[in-house]
């Protein structure tokens, strides 16, 4: 059934021009979106040597090496593609000008001279798990993960509570200046975040929460997008329900907590996803507020991989993949709610 849905065509039984265009466009889109991610994932399993190879390979292939009797270091293996020793696999001892001095691993006594144009590095498929294990062994990955997770979870919870309370008031209470307040909140969307950096930093500094996760959490919890999204959704909750709850002796807090909040669940799911993505991927603000490395979030730790003199690409890539995973999982689990929530909060 799924397949017949996917393979529907506009032309009867055969591919119409629009079908070609649609499929072409969609496949192009998939390549454009997933190509880089896939490349990163593949590259995270490459050794540093394979990463610096040119031309780059898609699969994690690494040059084969062999231990040859009489040599301390493992020697790289080469396939010979031409000349006298064509078809043999030899280990290279050293390169001298346009020639390479090589040795047959089976016969370590004999040295052979091969032109460098006649050899190709022998490669094998090898997964460098070490990229990942070193994150946990040499690098305090769990600490950064915990910092990021703490900020994301706590900020999201507070965001949902604050925004839904503001949205409830704006959607369901009639008070003087309601429209003005709402427009002001929406208007803050027009201010570029970079403009706020300095004033917010001054406030955060004054509160003494620089270099603490709360310095990242508090400035982020009031989001105009969230208030707008929830308010639009709450407008669709009938007033009669709230009146009925009031007749049922419910306090305003209980009306909010037991009636409005559960009924706004689809919109709240959307806000949760947005908030998780924002907080998890946030970079600039944590970079400013958090300066001690034990408070770093994953994004800051990733940045720290990029040193002034050298960059540990293998570690960086492995960590990028690990950083992508939680957000991907959350998105996959809640994506149905996104479409439902957005569709419903848009129209009354």
């Amino acid at each position, binding site marked *: 059934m799924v397949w017949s849905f996917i393979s529907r065509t506009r032309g009867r039984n055969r591919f119409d021009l629009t079908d070609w265009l649609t499929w072409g466009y969609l496949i192009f889109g998939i390549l454009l979106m997933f190509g880089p991610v896939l490349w990163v994932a593949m590259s995270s399993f490459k050794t540093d040597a394979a990463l610096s190879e040119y031309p780059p390979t898609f699969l994690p292939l690494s040059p084969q090496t062999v231990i040859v009797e009489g040599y301390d270091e493992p020697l790289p293996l080469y396939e010979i593609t031409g000349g006298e020793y064509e078809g043999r696999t030899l280990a290279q001892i050293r390169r001298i000008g346009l020639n390479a001095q090589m040795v047959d691993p089976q016969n370590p006594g004999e040295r052979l001279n091969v032109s460098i144009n006649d050899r190709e590095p022998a490669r094998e498929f090898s997964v460098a798990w070490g990229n990942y294990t070193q994150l946990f062994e040499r690098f305090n990955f769990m600490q950064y993960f915990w910092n990021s997770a703490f900020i994301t979870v706590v900020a999201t919870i507070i965001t949902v509570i604050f925004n839904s309370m503001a949205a409830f008031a704006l959607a369901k209470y009639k008070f003087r200046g309601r429209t003005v307040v709402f427009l002001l909140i929406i208007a803050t969307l027009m201010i570029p975040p970079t403009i706020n950096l300095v004033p917010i930093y001054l406030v955060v500094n004054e509160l003494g929460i620089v270099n603490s996760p709360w310095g990242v959490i508090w400035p982020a919890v009031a989001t105009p997008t969230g208030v707008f999204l929830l308010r639009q959704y709450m407008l669709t909750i009938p007033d009669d329900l709230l*009146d*009925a709850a*009031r*007749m*049922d*002796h*419910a306090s305003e807090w209980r009306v909010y907590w037991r*009636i409005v909040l*559960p*009924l706004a669940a689809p919109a709240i799911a959307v806000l949760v996803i947005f908030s998780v993505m924002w907080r998890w991927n946030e970079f600039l603000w944590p970079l400013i507020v958090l300066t001690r490395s034990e408070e770093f979030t994953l994004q800051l730790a990733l940045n720290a991989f990029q040193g002034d003199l050298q960059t540990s690409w293998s570690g960086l890539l492995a960590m990028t993949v690990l950083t992508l995973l939680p957000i991907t999982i959350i998105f996959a689990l809640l994506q149905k709610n996104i479409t439902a929530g957005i569709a419903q909060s848009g129209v009354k």
Partner: protein
Amino acid sequence: MAVVELEKLVKDYAGFRAIHGVDLTIEDGQFCVFVGPSGCGKSTLLRMIAGLEDISGGELRIDGERVNEQRAAERGLAMVFQSYALYPHMTVRENLAFGLENIRTPKDEIRRRVDDAARMLQIEEHMQRRPKQLSGGQRQRVAIGRAVVREPKVFLFDEPLSNLDAELRVVMRGEIASLHRRLGNTMIYVTHDQVEAMTMADKIVVLKLGTIQQVGSPLDLYNRPANQFVAGFIGSPRMNFLKMSVAETRAESIVVKEENGRSFEAAVSPEGVKAGDKVTVGIRPEHLEIGSERGHPVTIDSIEQLGGESYLYCTDAGGNPVTIHKSGQTRHRAGEEAQVFLPAESIHVFKEDGAALERLRIGEAV
């Protein structure tokens, strides 16, 4: 047990007065119906009593105690909403229990009251369902049940039957009436349907544009409408209105006549009118006698024969529609000319300002 008193109750919205000083007393145990066309303020008045709308002026008393400033819940009322307003995310049981949980009723007490209400309203087998899974009539019962478990002093109903189909409406009408007989509570019921008002009420309050037109028992309103609006609103089909003028006033009646000279005697008090005044004569479709000579000439446009009764829709010489209700079947045909006679005891006469002249002999009161 509760008496609800409204004294000069006023509701103002920005720049517009919705309720113009309403005075009303609803006795303990009375079934009182607010009726009127849409926009007459009946729902606003009910919501003011409930505490869901602020009172702009005047005083509302329940059992003699001023409650203007009390919150909705504190007034000890329960309300059934037009949309039922069942909490969609809770099961029927949770819906019924919500109000009791809010006032921290003990668990077993909640269970007992909810079960009692469910048994009374025959919704026991649906207790674990959500409102979406119920039919309209079942939802209506749950909404009533939610009011019943609270054991309120006064029940308020805001057009509770308007979302039901005609057949179910008649059934639920009977159930609400029998609920009232069983519980004996004061009930205030809002509707735009005069049939509901006539069949259920002890006392009907007819409202128009935020003012009370008349208060009385159903038959009072039917027999002695205070003005042309009430006369037109109560009774189905609507009362016929004919433009006439006063020909002569007598001791206990007046004579009205049409432009073409035919005249009828009306058994109403001549007070306030004199010969030559323009008046509107009202007569209910069921009181018109068709076929007699020297009557009001009409042309029959169409006929509805229901077997047990018949409706004849006619037009008179002046272009006024005239509806005739006859019990039994009729031999008349559409297109025929006919004469209708207006019996003196059945005629209502309204002055130019709409006020009725008092009826001195009433044909209906057999």
